[in-house]
């Protein structure tokens, strides 16, 4: 399968890329990792007349720590995050990266591309929403910073203007008494998750001081499970509070039945994943080292 014909432009800077897209108009698209865009073009769901390739812009793939903030470059690939000691300081970030699709896709796909695409089944948005994440954007009108919570507005829709792009993603490292887990359940490595849950807990003497819970692949955008958070906040983490939170997460899910499962099955998955993710997050918040990532047979 071939994509439709398009004109290829190779940007040498992000400013140039944005100016090019601005000049070429709505028929132009940006190419980052290409792991969603190229398949969409092959299926002719996307038929851009112009493609502006960002992959040859130097120094765009990095992971840096500055104080309590991790900075991810606009072309930092999932695999680079998976193997980064710096990114490992936030276990939920490492786990999310390490479980996305398969080795081949992780070598190409980017964190920024995933956020900009805003696929309802994307892994990065729910994981990063549990943290203080800022999306740094660049366009012909200049630069702006947007909190990730305000960035995705609908399925495949963000606040980015057509000629605006992500120049960096910054994530605040949570305190030592905080722990998180991202669990996505999928039938096999290369497919999208049937359901996914991201949890970040901050504990104080065993009690939950703060909880952030987001659900993915069970709604048009990541779902903020506020009732589930309320079931934990200022309470002890025990089987009863965990069960109440998981029940609230099940109720917050809004899944569609499809080839990945019935709506009821996905709600049950959300319940089970929330329970498990809270347990993992609490253990990590207490300083335990636990290995976890996406779940598939």
């Amino acid at each position, binding site marked *: 399968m071939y994509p439709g014909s398009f004109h*290829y432009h*190779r940007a040498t800077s992000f400013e140039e890329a944005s100016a090019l897209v601005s000049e070429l108009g709505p028929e132009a698209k940006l190419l980052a990792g290409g792991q969603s865009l190229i*398949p969409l073009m092959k299926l002719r769901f996307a038929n851009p007349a112009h493609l502006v390739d960002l992959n040859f812009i130097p120094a765009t793939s990095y992971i840096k720590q500055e104080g309590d903030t991790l900075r991810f470059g606009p072309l930092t690939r999932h695999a680079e995050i998976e193997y980064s000691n710096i990114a490992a300081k936030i276990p939920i970030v490492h786990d999310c990266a390490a479980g996305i699709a398969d*080795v*081949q*896709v992780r070598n190409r796909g980017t964190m920024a591309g995933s956020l900009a695409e805003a696929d309802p089944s994307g892994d990065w948005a729910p994981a990063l929403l549990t943290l203080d994440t800022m999306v740094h954007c660049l366009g012909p009108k200049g630069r702006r910073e947007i909190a990730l919570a305000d960035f995705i507005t609908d399925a495949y829709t963000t606040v980015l203007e057509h000629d605006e792009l992500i120049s960096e993603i910054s994530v605040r490292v949570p305190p030592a008494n905080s722990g998180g887990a991202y669990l996505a359940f999928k039938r096999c*490595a*290369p497919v999208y998750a049937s359901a996914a849950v991201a949890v970040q807990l901050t504990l104080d003497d065993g009690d939950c001081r703060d909880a952030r819970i987001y659900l993915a692949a069970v709604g048009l955008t990541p779902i903020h499970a506020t009732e589930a958070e309320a079931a934990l906040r200022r309470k002890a983490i025990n089987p009863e509070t965990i069960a109440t939170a998981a029940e609230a997460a099940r109720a917050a899910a809004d899944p569609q039945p499809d080839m990945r499962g019935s709506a009821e099955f996905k709600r049950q998955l959300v319940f089970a994943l929330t329970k498990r993710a809270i347990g993992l997050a609490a253990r990590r918040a207490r300083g335990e080292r636990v290995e976890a990532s996406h779940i598939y047979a």
Partner: protein
Amino acid sequence: MPEPQPVRIKLKVNGKPCELAVEPRMLLVEMIRETLDLTGTHVGCDTTYCGACTVLLNGLPVKSCTVLAVQADQGEVLTVEGLAANGELHPIQQAFMDQHGLQCGYCTPGMQLAAYHLLAHNPHPSERDIRKAIAGNTCRCTGYQNIFRAIESAAELMRR
């Protein structure tokens, strides 16, 4: 709108320098198979799922059905044809043969390149490491057990 012009690219394929003009929409796998006539790389699902088209681009496994040929410009590509050297099978190929790691052979080149990348970075892979390394490669014949044994055995051959 005028027809898109071919783009001149320069790269190394299996160590050999190549210079060619490609249509922007040409996929890396089509360039490898149709232009360079290296038909060891297979097209399976053509939808970024099965991994039959796996090659190494700048040392990293990628699904060549989901990379444009123009993106390999200035890069290095390794395909299954580049594994054997001086008329001798690569230890990974030998191990696939010895352990019956293939039946129809369709997934084999992709499997071998995924294994090549794993073993280049991890000479002592655990069971989990091997399973994770080939999670993006689908085999419809073997049930994976012999492929798994072949990669274990290749690791041993390569440590000698």
